Every structure is written in structure tokens, then in C-alpha cells.
């Protein structure tokens, strides 16, 4: 297990290096530091001197990859790539381009708020969609199945924006069941502020989830071991909830990682609408302020999390299915 993990993390490194290079090229070749300075300082009425000062202040005046004016180790360290991009591997995100705040500190402050929103949505939607999918699969090829399927496709076809705007209007403004927006990290108040966004996030993920898990269960139901279980006289409920569920865990796990990007995307909007000071609203603020450093850091952090999640899923494969050995 340990050897496998080490190797898997070693494999992840070239990928992260690729991500790093891609982001670097995007932010420092396609969009040069000078462009960046002009965008942030304002295109017009900015002197060359101001631009130079800004670049020096942020260490963007250095050459990109190789600094020939310095002696050996500094030839490579006194460059934008080393200072700005390689630091990401050590989670040194540096400072913001717009107001010079420390990005790492800001991230540490915001991550718990994002997690407080994402975790309940994640687990509640997993539980509810799987349960609902099994019920739908239980009534397969009946009228209930058909209606449920059409409802799912309809729910998938509606933009998350509608659920958020509609939900906020109906429950918070019209019925006054929850605060419209706001946040308080203290425990009992937290629930009050999170309940509506979590509920809306749940609604938004149900359609796609139920439909997807239903296909997985239907696939399992047509397999030989299920026929055997039925033949020896087990009830349909036992077959479905004991035998099929256990075997469907593997494809379910795969879907769980697929849903992680969706989680980020959904939370971006939810945090924005409900005023939760997490990573999502940080991104939206950065977009508004054209803060390139923040977006660069987030893109890298996002892929680290994604790759990490992939590794966790692979490890958990071996727990869900003893036939899989990690070698």
C-alpha cells in the first residue's frame, strides 16, 4: 500500500508540472507582465515608470526562465518561473496582484467556510440520490420509473441559477424561512445560514445523480450473481439493497470524483448568492478585480485537489472491492 501510494504520487508530479507550465504560459506569455500591470493600474494615464515600479514591487521584472545576469544557482532562481510558479508546489502562493494581501493566509481563512458548505451538500446528495436511484431501479420498467426518469431529465435541464434565484426568492424573501444571505461561523448560527444553500445545492444535484446511479443499478441487476440470488429465493429488496449496492459501489466511487468539479462550480454560485466567504466567492472577487495571482493560485490548487481526490478514489477501490490489489 505504501509503495503504491508513493509511486502514485510520483506519477502525479509530472502532471502537476504540466499544469504548472500550462498556467505559467497562459499567465506570463499569452498575457505578459506588462499587460498585467496595465490592466491593474488602468490602461490609460499610466506612465512607463509606474509600470516599472509595479513590476519590480511584484518581482515581475525578472526574466521568465533563465536569468543570465546572475551566477549559477540564481540563474534559475532569480526568474519569474522559479519565484512565482515553482513556489506553488510548496503551497507558497505569494501575494495578490491588486492589494498585496497574502494569498495563503486568505486561503486558510476561507477554506473552512467552503468546506462547511460543500461537505453537507456532498454527503446529503450522495445519500439521497443513491437511495432514490435504488427505489427507481426497484420499480424499473413501470410507470413510476418512467415518470421519475423524465423528472430527472427535466431537473437536469434547469440551470442552477434558476434553483438559486428561485429558491432564494421563495424560501428567504417570500416565506421568510431562512436568511436571504449572510454568514456566521459560530456553530448554532451557522446552521441557520447554511440550511438554504445546502438545500438548493442538493436540489441542483439530484436530477443528474439519480439518473446516473439508476443506470448503474440496472446494469448490476442484469448480472448473473443477481439471478443466482433471486433463484435461491431472496427477496427483491435484499437482492437490491445487499447484493447490487455492494457491487455498484465501484462505479459510484468513480462518479463521486466526477462530481467534485461540479461541487466547485456549484459552490461558486451558491457562495456568491448567499454571501458565504469561501473559496468560490474569493474567485468571483478575483475575477471582478482582475487579480491574476489569485486565479493562477486557485487553478493550481484546484488541480492538486483533483489529483489528490483521484488517488483517494483509487485507494478506496481496493477497500470496496477486495479483488483489486494496489501494486
Amino acid at each position, binding site marked *: 500500500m505504501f509503495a503504491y501510494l508513493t509511486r502514485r504520487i510520483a506519477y502525479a508530479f*509530472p*502532471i*502537476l508540472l*504540466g*499544469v504548472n507550465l*500550462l*498556467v505559467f504560459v*497562459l*499567465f506570463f506569455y*499569452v*498575457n505578459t507582465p506588462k499587460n498585467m500591470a496595465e490592466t491593474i493600474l488602468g490602461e490609460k494615464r499610466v506612465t512607463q515608470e509606474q509600470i516599472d515600479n509595479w513590476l519590480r514591487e511584484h518581482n515581475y521584472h525578472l526574466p521568465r526562465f533563465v536569468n543570465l545576469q546572475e551566477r549559477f544557482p540564481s540563474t534559475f532562481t532569480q526568474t519569474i518561473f522559479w519565484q512565482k510558479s515553482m513556489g506553488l508546489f510548496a503551497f507558497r502562493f505569494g501575494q495578490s496582484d491588486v492589494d498585496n494581501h497574502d494569498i495563503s493566509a486568505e486561503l486558510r481563512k476561507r477554506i473552512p467556510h467552503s468546506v462547511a458548505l460543500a461537505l453537507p451538500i456532498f454527503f446529503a446528495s450522495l445519500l439521497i440520490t443513491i437511495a432514490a436511484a435504488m427505489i427507481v431501479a426497484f420499480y424499473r420498467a413501470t410507470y413510476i420509473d418512467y415518470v421519475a426518469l423524465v423528472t430527472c*431529465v*427535466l431537473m*437536469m*435541464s*434547469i*440551470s*442552477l*441559477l*434558476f434553483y438559486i*434565484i428561485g429558491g432564494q*426568492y421563495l424560501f428567504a424573501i417570500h416565506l421568510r424561512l431562512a436568511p436571504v444571505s449572510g454568514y456566521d461561523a459560530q456553530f448554532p448560527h451557522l446552521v441557520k445560514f447554511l440550511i438554504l444553500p445546502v438545500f438548493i445545492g442538493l436540489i441542483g444535484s439530484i436530477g*443528474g445523480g439519480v439518473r*446516473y446511479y439508476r*443506470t*448503474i443499478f440496472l*446494469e448490476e441487476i442484469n448480472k448473473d450473481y443477481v439471478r443466482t440470488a433471486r433463484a435461491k429465493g431472496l427477496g427483491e429488496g435484499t437482492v437490491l439493497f445487499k447484493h447490487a449496492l455492494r457491487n455498484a459501489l465501484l*462505479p459510484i466511487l468513480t*462518479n463521486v470524483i*466526477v462530481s*467534485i*468539479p461540479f461541487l*466547485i*462550480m456549484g459552490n*461558486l*454560485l451558491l457562495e*456568491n448568492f448567499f454571501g458565504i466567504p469561501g473559496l468560490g466567492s474569493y*474567485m*468571483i472577487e478575483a*475575477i*471582478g478585480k*482582475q487579480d*491574476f495571482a489569485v*486565479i*493562477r493560485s*486557485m*487553478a493550481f490548487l*484546484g*488541480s492538486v*485537489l*483533483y*489529483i489528490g481526490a483521484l488517488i483517494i478514489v483509487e485507494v478506496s477501490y481496493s477497500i470496496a472491492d477486495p479483488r483489486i490489489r494496489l501494486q
Partner: protein
Amino acid sequence: MTNLLNNWYVKDAIVAVVVGIMVWIGLMLSRREVWRSAMRQVFGRRIVRVSFAILALYTLIAVLDSVGYHQPLRNSDGSLRRHPETNRVIFDSDGRSLLDLLLTPLRNMEEKTYSAPFSATQFTKETLYDDEGKTTRGQPPLKHPRRHVLGTDRVGNDVLYLSLKGIRTGMIIGGFTTLLVIPFAILFGVTAGYFRGWIDDLIQYIYTVLSSIPSLLLIISFMIVFGRGLPQLCIIMGITSWTGLCRVLRGETLKLRELEYVQAAEAMGVRRARIMFQHIVPNLMHIVLITAVLSFSGRVLAEAVLSYIGIGVGADTISWGSMINDARQELARDPVIWWKLIAALVFMVGLVLPANLFGDALRDALDPRLRTE
């Protein structure tokens, strides 16, 4: 280059080429019996026929809206206005499309500001003068009472017209993007799966790197660097959907290349390029088609979100996302101005729901085992 691309006849030529390719693909597929029988199964259900009809209608509107022209300016006596020195005809600077021409009455029904659907009076109150010169506060009558099916927006444009104009943006992002990336996905996916070795490693590396950045973050990074706009959005959405399709096609090619008919072709000395494009690619087309239709709806929905957070299409492009974005302040008013938001959402569902239903039917008929998110 940008100048050339912005010319209306270049744009029209692109539209003609795209429509031509679509018709050609349709004709090619309808010649094969496998596809004909699959299509008979797909179109056997009424809900699919209805979905297809709606999609065709949306496509027609989008194509009509893409064919542009500029009107020549005329003098007051009706003769063409010409440049005094070069003697060339002068054209109107803002282009129109065929859809604009068809919707001229709708386009010209401008009001001063907000009005509710089918309302006879303006939504906001203002000071009115009656015949005797007395002033009252009230809602003035509209210039076109009870004619705005979906009401008007802040600057008095008809919301139905805006929603119809949004179709083109949605269709370009949903459909045109796919047409752009499909050739690349097929080329790279099949090459990687067929040749294996270092080519496979390289292509796998490229798409793994691209797909390791969560797509939303990649799109945001790309759009913040290149700025808002429809072409940029199409390219980056193309890249994010390319990775998934490429991966599936590579896996499928790996399976196909071991099959007997491919081995037989190899034994007979058929050239590799011919094997790839004549023996393998046709057997992947169903996957391409299913993925194209099913990923369509995801992109239409994503456009709205991106335009909403301010990195989608530019402010000068009418899209459902920017309509929803406008609706943000309108919802904070009391009484609520809901029609622009609802119109954009209903038009979106009207496109996404049939696309999903049609995609599902295609998958059930062509490859029920293909798992799609």
C-alpha cells in the same frame, strides 16, 4: 485578421460551410443501413420526434440569425448614398441578420422602460400631464399596449426579441464548439489508441494535464487572460470537452484494433492511415454523436453561469446568461421584475431539455452501455 473575420460575408461563408458539413454528415450517415435502422428506433417514440422538431426549430433560428448583411444607406430621395470621393456605396455600420429582418415589427416595438407581459401601461410610474395641464403620478400607457408577450426590459426592448436573439449564442456555444473539436478529438484519440507507444503517452499526458485542472478553473483562467467574448469562450469550452471525448475514443480504439477485422486488414497490408480512417473511425462515430448531443446541454447551461459571473460572452452579445445577469438588480425591486429572468430560463430549458431527451434516445439506440454523466 480580426477585421476579415468580422466581415459579414466571411461570417456568412462560415455559416454556409457549417450547414453544408452538417447536411453532408447527415447524408453520409443515412446511406448506411446500421444508422438507418438505429434512427428508425430513435424516432419511433413521439417524445423524441417532438424533441427533434424543437431542436430543428432552434437550429433554424440560429442559422437565420447568423446570416448577416449590412443595409446600404439611402439619401432622402431614395437613391443610394455614395462616398463623395470614392463613389462607393456607404453601408450601415451595425449589421443585421435575416432573423432581424423577419422580426422587424418586434424589434421596432421599443418602449421607454420596463413593462410587464401583455401590459397596457408602463411598469414604472412617472409624472403625467392631462389635457387641463394638471399633473398626476401614474403609469403612462405604452406605445404598443398589450403587444409585448414577454414584456420589455430596462431600456424598453422587447424581451421576446432578446430571448430569440439569445438562441444563436446558445447554439454556437452548444453546437458549433463541438464541430470545432470533433476532428481533433478523433485524430488524437484514434492515433493514440492505434499507435500506442510514445505517441499514446504524449497524447495521454496532454489530455490528462488539461483535464486535471477542474474545467471551471481552466475556463476562468483562460477567459481572464484572453478577455470576454464568444470566440474565446467557444475555444476554451472546446478544449475542456475535447479531453473527455479524446479519452473515450482512445479507449475504444484500443479495443477495436485487436478485433479480427482490423487484424485481417493489417495482414492484407492495408496502409495504417486507411485502417484508422476507414476501419476504425466509422465504428466510433456513434460515440462521437452521443457525446456531442449530450455535452451540448452542459455547455449551454455553463454559458449562463459564466456570463453571470462576468467572464462569459461580452456585454454586446445578447445571451441568456447576460439576460439573467441583468435580472439580478431587477429581482431586488419591489414589486419584482421577473419576466426577463423567466424568459431567459424558459428559453434555456426549451433548448436543453429536448437536447437531453434526444441524446438519451440516441444513446439507448446506439450504445446503451456507454456511460455518460
